[in-house]
């Protein structure tokens, strides 16, 4: 067992999931390797400290304050949900009539049909454009990251959580792709917008692997034309 395997087994051990068959080799490495021995001892000590309920405890009076705010909150017209009529879920009830009103008002069928034709025409134009572009495009895959978190997640970019990415992207940090060589390539504005949209539309919390189609002769920022979230295993 080497140090990498030891650490992997250490994770299992701490979760109580270490296989009995691994125990001997684990113990031998622990006795032979001072680094790993110390790593295990200090991680165990650290867990004991964080688990100790004297730390991060609710301050005095917090429990009472919680009950006071609940007493006030639960008195509100918020009758227990099961007693309400089924349709009256608060959030959708407020939004639904407005939506109906907007659709119903002034939307005559003739105009809708014209819109549909315009949309169909746009798809045709788009398809021709895409076909022309595809002849000279290139495809690149990698991890979707932002410049802010790039250093922290560099050796394991698949861990970069999607909400962290969105937070960074919307606060103006440069977003881009980390290629197989571990280099960071920023996106242009179009790529940035596509990356945000793709992450927001997906339910992935991590493993933000993307395939991007870039226009040839990109400048310092990748000229992203199309971007899709995918599976790193499938892409390799």
């Amino acid at each position: 067992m080497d140090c990498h395997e030891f650490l992997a087994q250490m994770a299992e051990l701490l979760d109580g999931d270490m296989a009995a068959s691994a125990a001997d080799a684990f113990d031998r490495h622990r006795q032979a390797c001072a680094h790993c021995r110390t790593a295990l001892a200090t991680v165990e000590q650290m867990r004991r400290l964080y688990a100790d309920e004297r730390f991060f405890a609710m301050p005095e009076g917090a429990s009472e304050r919680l009950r006071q705010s609940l007493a006030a909150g639960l008195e509100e017209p918020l009758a227990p949900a099961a007693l309400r009529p089924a349709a009256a879920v608060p959030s959708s009830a407020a939004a639904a009539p407005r939506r109906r009103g907007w659709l119903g008002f002034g939307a005559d069928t003739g105009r809708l049909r014209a819109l549909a034709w315009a949309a169909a025409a746009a798809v045709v134009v788009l398809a021709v454009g895409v076909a022309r572009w595809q002849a000279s495009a290139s495809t690149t895959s990698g991890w979707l990251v932002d410049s802010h978190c790039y250093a922290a997640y560099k050796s394991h970019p698949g861990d970069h959580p999607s909400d962290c990415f969105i937070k960074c992207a919307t606060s103006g940090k440069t977003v881009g792709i980390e290629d197989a060589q571990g280099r960071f390539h920023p996106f242009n504005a179009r790529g940035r917008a596509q990356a945000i949209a793709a992450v927001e539309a997906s339910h992935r919390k991590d493993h933000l692997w993307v395939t991007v189609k870039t226009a040839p002769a990109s400048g310092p920022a990748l000229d992203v034309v199309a971007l899709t979230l995918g599976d790193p295993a499938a892409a390799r």
Partner: protein
Amino acid sequence: MPESGTAVEDDLALVRRACSGDREAFYTLVSRYERGLFRSALAITRNQADAEEVVQETFLRAYEHLNQFRAEAKFQTWLTQIALNTARMKLRKAHAGLWESLDEPRATEDGFLPRDVAEWRENPEQRLGRVEIETILHHALQGLPPGYREVVALRDIQMLSTQETADVLGMSVANVKTRLLRARLQLRERLAGPLGKRA
């Protein structure tokens, strides 16, 4: 301590009673989970006032949406998901623009092989005061990337199981384990200064 002989009423039964208007049943759930939720909320939001608000809002929202709770899920997991979302929103609001500087990541490349690992002194509790240790633990946690801080908060501070942590975060158990290992090793390294033998 539950009295021997009387089974502790399970969460689902309490949720059902609370749904039919039994406030006491809901308060039993509050007592059961307030401390755990507070601990992880504090680890994520970084201050007591925010953590208190997170816990209050979590229980209010839970009560309001109790009829949407699905019996297949675990109540604690559902509750913790609400708390995590509330904590994230709070963090986003309160620290917009500020959190980057607090979070400046350190490059810990080459994976995380333990090289030159400093030993710690035994039982820092005997050498340092409670507040001092808490400050050290808190500070070390704040230096982690948000994705790592959350996994430690749920697993090692709120003491959820690996499966529950995975359910709350919407990740696989295998991913939780890998992320947790990296987070713990980074955290360990951050604590080696203040808790190490050379300190």
